[in-house]
């Protein structure tokens, strides 16, 4: 096919001619319209729908501040700690860049957790948005990796011992474990080799993957269209032009909606950066202002707050707790056999896995440390199953039975309890609460196929709930 360029009148503005020249060679206008300009989003978005664009903003903040931090940071076990202090004290405005980066890390997780809470409430992971959810889940995993690798770089005591603990998690895997953690560290202890490779992952590898996943997340979202607080597919009700009657183009409507959200966010963000960058030890832990010492673990070590819900599950897994887990697995397999309509082969597979786990948890089997790591990993990975675990006939919590709201609130409280316990020093009572919370956490997901379909559902309206203002 011959190349045909659209002819514009000779007196057309130069900018139009330039755009036409580009559009004939690259789908610039098309991309803008598909992804934002003519992307019809439901008109009933509430404030919960701000966190997607805020996450994008924080990603940009992290990349830009990160680039400038690397200009002065030295990834060397002998120099890293002092180079961070150099940034803080000697580099003009270096403290601002660093505090923006460290506050940005926590802000990122606050935003992502709220973004995920929104998805839980309104069923945004349900068909046809399974891949939107899975790409988002992969982004969450990347963020955790990014935060973990980045946390070693200041080479303080918490950096050092936090990395030591997480790398040793891999050592719990039978047979290959100890060699695997040696391979990850590149030395017998966390050392210069470890610091250098973590630096490389933090500034190159993970950000590249992260950016690719963000693009995939957005392409998938803009392909299937956004969910909304009513959980209605707006594409099922189109006007004469083929646009959803309940949709508005993102530009200008959501452009300005989001700019308002960005303004509010930046006010809060600046307040933290300027007045409380350490956030009482939650965003930057006091022990991390002591250089790494391989001979002495700080008296109280806890991961940064965003990891603590999962970390609590790891810590709660003691050999006594395994009996509860075994009973739970046995009961679950029975439940699957009696109350599910899965194919016989899948039922048998689940029973097989259950049996292996129960035997493995026996006193003669693998130790509690290994199972702690398994439960820790499962508590994160189980999120990926949401699109298939939820069997409710409606998406949004608005049209679900009222007691579903209580279930969601209890889950929220459980998650926060686990998070709180993770930053506290261990004690027998706290451990017991963490174990109860861990059971509730897993029950929420594993029993979802049943509870999510139970109760009387309210009729879902044909059009979204929207009050013009």
């Amino acid at each position, binding site marked *: 096919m011959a190349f045909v360029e659209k002819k514009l009148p000779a007196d057309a503005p130069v900018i139009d001619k330039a755009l036409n020249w580009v559009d004939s060679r690259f789908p610039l206008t098309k991309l803008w319209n598909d992804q934002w300009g003519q992307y019809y989003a439901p008109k009933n978005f509430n404030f919960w729908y701000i966190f997607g664009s805020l996450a994008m903003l924080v990603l940009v903040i992290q990349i830009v501040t990160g680039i400038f931090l690397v200009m002065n940071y030295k990834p060397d076990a002998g120099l890293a700690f002092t180079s961070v202090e150099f940034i803080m004290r000697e580099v003009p405005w270096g403290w601002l860049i660093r505090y923006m980066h460290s506050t940005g890390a926590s802000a990122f997780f606050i935003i992502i957790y709220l973004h995920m809470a929104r998805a839980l409430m309104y069923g945004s992971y349900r068909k046809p948005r399974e891949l939107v959810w899975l790409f988002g889940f992969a982004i969450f995993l990347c963020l955790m990796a990014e935060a973990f690798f980045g946390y070693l770089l200041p080479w303080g005591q918490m950096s050092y*011992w936090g990395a*030591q*603990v*997480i*790398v*040793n*998690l891999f*050592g719990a895997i039978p047979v290959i474990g*100890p060699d695997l953690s*040696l*391979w*990850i*560290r*590149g*030395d*017998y*202890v966390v*050392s210069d*080799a470890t610091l250098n*490779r973590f630096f490389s992952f933090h500034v190159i590898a993970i950000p590249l993957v992260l950016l690719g996943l963000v693009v995939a997340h957005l392409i998938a979202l803009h392909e299937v269209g956004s969910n909304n607080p009513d959980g209605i597919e707006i594409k099922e009700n189109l006007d004469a032009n083929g646009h959803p009657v309940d949709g508005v183009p993102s530009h200008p409507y959501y452009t300005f909606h989001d700019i308002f959200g960005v303004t509010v966010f930046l006010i809060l963000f600046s307040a933290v950066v300027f007045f409380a960058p350490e956030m009482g030890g939650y965003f930057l832990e006091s022990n991390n202002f002591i250089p790494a010492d*391989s*001979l*002495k*673990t*700080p*008296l*109280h*070590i806890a991961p940064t707050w965003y990891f603590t819900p999962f970390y609590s599950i*790891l*810590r709660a*897994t*003691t*050999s*006594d707790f395994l009996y509860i887990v075994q009973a739970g697995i046995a009961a679950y397999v029975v439940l699957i056999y009696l109350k599910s309509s899965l194919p016989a082969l899948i039922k048998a597979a689940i029973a097989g896995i259950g049996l292996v786990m129960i035997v493995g948890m026996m006193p003669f089997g693998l*130790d*509690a*440390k290994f199972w*702690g790591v398994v439960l820790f990993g499962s508590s994160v990975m189980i999120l990926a199953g949401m699109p298939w675990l939820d069997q409710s006939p409606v998406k949004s919590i608005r049209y679900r039975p009222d007691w579903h709201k209580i279930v969601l609130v209890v889950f929220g409280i459980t998650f926060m309890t686990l998070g709180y316990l993770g930053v506290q*020093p*261990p*004690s*027998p009572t706290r*451990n017991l609460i963490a174990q109860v919370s861990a059971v509730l956490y897993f029950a929420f997901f594993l029993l979802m196929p049943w509870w999510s379909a139970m109760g009387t559902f309210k009729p879902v309206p044909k059009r979204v709930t929207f009050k013009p203002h």
Partner: protein
Amino acid sequence: MSNEKQVDSGRRGLLVATCAAGGVVGLSATGAFVSTFQPSERAKAGGAPVEVDISTLKPGEMTTAEWRGKPVWILKRTPEMMASLKATQSEVADPDSAKPYTMPLPEYCEKQSRARKEHEDVLIAVGICSHLGCSPSKKFTPGAQPSLPDNWAGGFLCPCHGSTFDLSGRVFKNKPAPQNLDVPRHMYISDTKIVIGKDEKGEA
């Protein structure tokens, strides 16, 4: 369809061979990248034995030496501390260190004191928790205190996940840590001088 092209088996064979050759090169290259993660020769050579002088160590005191980048504790136990080991014998998960962490208990060490017979009061242990590698802190004062049971007889508490160890470095039952602390191979070159990482049989 009638006009479907016949597969040229000669070309198909070449295609398979090319892919296989390319795959081998790709896999080997991946292997090279993966191998860069292994400890370097320099890191491997960093594990020489260390000598420690304990002449100034008083009963009840502990000193820490660095061996292979890890803390090694040398604790001179008092008679009361030694007596506490009998009380903890039934409360620890593995009193005889049958399931060691990274190195077996040297055969010249007693099971309960986990020390050499001729210096039974001196505990030499790698201060790295068998759970996730934190270094436990010393909690030598007996009695009830935060994070510890009421009948605490003295020992170590891992600040990370709450594992507790007795004064021989044996882990208590039902704790996250699965194994006792490691006792490295060691020997006395005089009454007050210890070599860690080396014994009569050579280097550990």
